[in-house]
């Protein structure tokens, strides 16, 4: 592999990792500045998915000149897969619990379609705060 090609690869990798770090910083700023749980969740998901994927791509590119090992690439792909599969589930559960325990500020919502839905469900079920649904 020529010297020049390795330099190009290194620049690409460092730019990917820089973008991932920038997304982390943006998430930190958003966590401090945003007013309620849902908007904070919106900003917090960026480094967890896109930022991490960029960093993993950067690691992969950076490791190409020294060792091309199937285990390294496999580990990187596994990390990406776990993160992409688990982050939406965790975010969904957090938002759901936040809504159902009344921690969401209703004045900050543009529309609340779930409230009407829950009310009609309650009429059918005869009331009762059922958290298991």
């Amino acid at each position, binding site marked *: 592999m020529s010297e020049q090609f390795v330099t190009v690869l290194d*620049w690409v*990798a*460092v*730019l990917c*990792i*820089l973008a*991932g*770090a*920038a997304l*982390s*910083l943006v*998430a*930190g700023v958003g*966590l*401090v500045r945003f007013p309620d*749980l849902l908007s*904070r*969740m919106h900003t*917090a998901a960026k*480094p*967890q998915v896109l*930022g*991490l994927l960029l*960093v*993993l791509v*950067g*690691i992969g590119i*950076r*490791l190409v*000149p*020294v*060792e091309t090992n199937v285990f390294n690439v496999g*580990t*990187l792909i*596994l*990390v990406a897969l*776990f993160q992409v599969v*688990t*982050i939406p*589930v*965790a975010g969904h*559960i*957090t938002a*759901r*619990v*936040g*809504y*159902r*325990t*009344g*921690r969401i*500020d*209703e004045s900050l919502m543009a529309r609340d379609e779930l*409230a009407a839905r*829950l009310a009609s469900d*309650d009429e059918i079920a005869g*009331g*009762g*705060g059922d*958290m298991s649904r």
Partner: protein
Amino acid sequence: MNALWIAIGVMLGLAALLGMVRMLMGPSVLDRALSVDVLLASALTGAGAYAAFHRDPTVLPTLLVLSLLGFVGSVSIAKFVARRALGEHIPSTTGSHPTSATPTDAVPDSEKGENP
């Protein structure tokens, strides 16, 4: 290129600091769990940047463990909050929905650490 690596380190440090600020201020447990998630993402990015900088693949299994840890942590905290809210709401207000709680009791005092 060294300047870019330094910039990466500074950005990650700032992100972790801001996440810590939210963890200290966070009005509810869920906000704190969320900031822990962001801290974990910064840690993942930091470990990844270390691996990339030194071209050293030995820390890659750490990334795997951290990515699973974040999921387990946030889901278990959310489930814990849900069960405790259920226990608080049902004896006092039978028949009312948990979402009908007024904003004043939206965050129970027990979360602020006054009650055990």
